[in-house]
């Protein structure tokens, strides 16, 4: 069985801690995503990074709240090149800015899209429909 471990890391130490973890034997970045704690916590955005060690059969999940006001954090692409797409997705969906990313553009949404859809204050979206002969509200 794979052991699983959860750690909290300050966002300013994230880059150094992750590069230490890579030397420790976590070869693969499996997943990177963001949780939006809108109106639940003072600092909204929390990075969730899943690392996997294939040699030691261990997983580690890093939770790191982004304390920066401009929602900036250091990119992990120089440690794990596989985090490229995931960071672009996090930028696209939540507006987190990864400093040092080679090509931080929208990945899933159209380039001219306004807003970041997976934020909790971004509506689900609907089109108002006016029915024939219906009383106007």
């Amino acid at each position, binding site marked *: 069985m794979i052991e699983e471990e959860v750690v909290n890391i300050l966002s300013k130490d994230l880059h150094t801690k992750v590069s230490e973890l890579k030397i420790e034997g976590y070869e693969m970045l499996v997943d990177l995503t963001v949780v939006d704690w809108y109106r639940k916590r003072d600092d909204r955005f929390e990075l969730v990074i899943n690392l996997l060690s294939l040699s030691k059969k261990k997983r580690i999940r890093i939770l790191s709240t982004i304390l920066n006001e401009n929602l900036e954090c250091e990119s992990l692409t120089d440690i794990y090149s*596989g985090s490229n*797409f995931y960071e672009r997705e996090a930028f696209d969906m939540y507006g987190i800015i990864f400093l040092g990313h080679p090509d931080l553009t929208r990945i*899933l949404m159209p380039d001219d899209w306004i807003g970041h859809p997976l934020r909790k204050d971004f509506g689900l979206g609907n089109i108002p429909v006016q029915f024939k002969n219906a009383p106007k509200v």
Partner: protein
Amino acid sequence: MDDKEKKQKEYVKDSEYWATNAEQGGWSLTSTDEGNQKMEKEETPEELEIQMGKEIIDDYIDSETLSSEDERMIINMGPQHPSTHGVLRLQVELEGEIVRRVKPVIGYLHTGMEKTGESLTYSQGCTNTTRMDYLAPLFNELVFSLTTEKLLNIEVPDRAKQIRILMTELNRVTSHLVALATGGMDIGAISMMIFGFRERELILNFFEKTTGLRMNHNYIRPGGVAADLPDGWEGDIQEILEEIPNKLKDYDQMLLDNPIWNGRLRNVGILTTQECFDLGITGPSLRASGFDWDLRKVQPYSGIEKFEFDIPVLNDSDAFSRWRIKVLEIQESLKIVQQAMETMPKGDYRIDDKKVTPPPRKRLDESMEALIHHFKLFTEGFKVQEGEAYVSVESPRGELGCYIVSDGSSKPYKMHIRGPSFCNLQALPIIMSDSPIADAVASIASLDPVMGDVDR
């Protein structure tokens, strides 16, 4: 590099000596005309290693032949290209026939399923996730259900577990069959296209009988499965188990020693183990690069550790081994299916927990409590305690993970699916660049991306 050049220069000198200074070479050269015939140049040790398959050339073209930027051309491949397996667009920079740079452009199938998932209850969630990887829908349902069950801290009955394994392993066979079929068509083996879909139909008929639908089943749900296996299911499975191995032999007969097939796939699209680690690539592509890693063995889920099966590992790390490993995995999956059929335990197919499982229809007429539970489950859904969980399973394309954050309500606060195709697509620039454009399609097909899983 310096040593190589020196060796080559020495070799050239020697050959010149024998060819030009023939009179010094020996009496045989002058006495007969044998010496005037030019000998075939002997291979250098490096060339010999390549011919013997010890060393792999990643890129066909040396960097020395680079031309100026003016001679390059950027063309778009897709999104409406039949061999990109959906709506994948590739910006390809060409220099003559050589691909120099590739940029995958995705998002054409993005429908915001993770956002939708936040407004659906846990029991509705499977209808949403099953539409992501549409070739392996049961795996999506399985991973969502397992994560919900981990948050709920419940364990489903043995029969439900075994049905899940049976159905997902059959699903792995169908998914690989589509990969073989479409991959074959991309390279020109048109009959492979027909064969793959023909065999897949056999299993899809069984799925239709069991779940009611051929795709997007919503069969595996939190708390068990939606329905028990139909009457006479053993007969159907027996037919599948007899039919498909025979057909696999046909495929091997047609393709395994086929010179065109070998020529198109061998040494094409090299993806080494180290590159797989860096890019987070899992599944058949990692195993085809010689690294033994399968979550069914190292992180067993749903009681799969009870079954005996092997993990095929190949060392060539090219498109051919990525094709071959899918054939071998079908055989191993069928082994699991046979064992699951033979040892299917009796019992309930869903958990006996009134808070999760809706009561049976006849109880609604006689029990007020059952009626309330039924109403609550279908209007509000069951509540899940606060917490977060990440569960992953081995899908046909790699590690499929689900990360759910619960805030104590009946809907997930955050639902994220780690799709293997999304991550595997990052390998395209590496395996396609510095290779001929003719190999591009073979490289894409060997990675087997499903755009529904990429864009979500």
